[in-house]
């Protein structure tokens, strides 16, 4: 299983907080977005992480990974 998390404004736009999916072969971040987000186009500037490290759309995801999508950060 792969856990997918959404944060902040993106969580509201996508209407999901956390989703779990099966880890298929050659599963990329881009494929996860398309599979989970029901045709919502990926907004510009979205950030993504695998296991809490920044990554990009082409990265491969494996069973047990935690994937996150979130908008530009605004802390501090």
């Amino acid at each position, binding site marked *: 299983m792969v856990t997918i*998390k959404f*944060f*902040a*404004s993106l969580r509201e736009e996508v209407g999901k907080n956390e989703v779990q999916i099966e880890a298929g072969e050659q599963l990329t971040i881009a494929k996860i977005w398309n599979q989970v987000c029901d045709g919502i186009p990926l907004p510009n500037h979205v*950030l993504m*992480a695998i296991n*809490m490290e*920044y990554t990009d759309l082409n990265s491969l995801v494996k069973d047990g990974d935690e994937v*996150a999508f*979130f*908008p*530009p*950060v*605004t*802390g*501090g």
Partner: protein
Amino acid sequence: MLVKIIPNEFNPWKYLQEHELQAGKFGATATFIGTMRDYNVGDTVKSMFLEHYPNMTEKHLQKISNIALQRWDILDTLIIHRVGEILPGDNIVLVAAWAGHRAPAFEACRFLMEELKAKAPFWKRETLVNNEVRWVDAN
């Protein structure tokens, strides 16, 4: 190195006072505190909610602290960041760097703040006086 995410109001000066390095071994302490304003991009703000990504946020702050400790001749760093519901006047973030001399202390402190602002997973959602709620998208 100290990295801490806290859900309650905090007194930055108390944290700094309690973060004691060995007397005589450091000569410079540079600090920065970010505090919630009651205004933002022309509007009056009533309150703010600070969201973060538990564990990733801490991990990222530890990473930038390690980079600072390697890049500059500094002795120690500290980052404390508030999360949850906050009010104008509440402190949001405290960053500090200790060194033998002033230049690395200043530079490391500034670096930590800029890196935190650029990449640490925190998000601000503000509530205006008219009760409009909006995510802050500029930084």
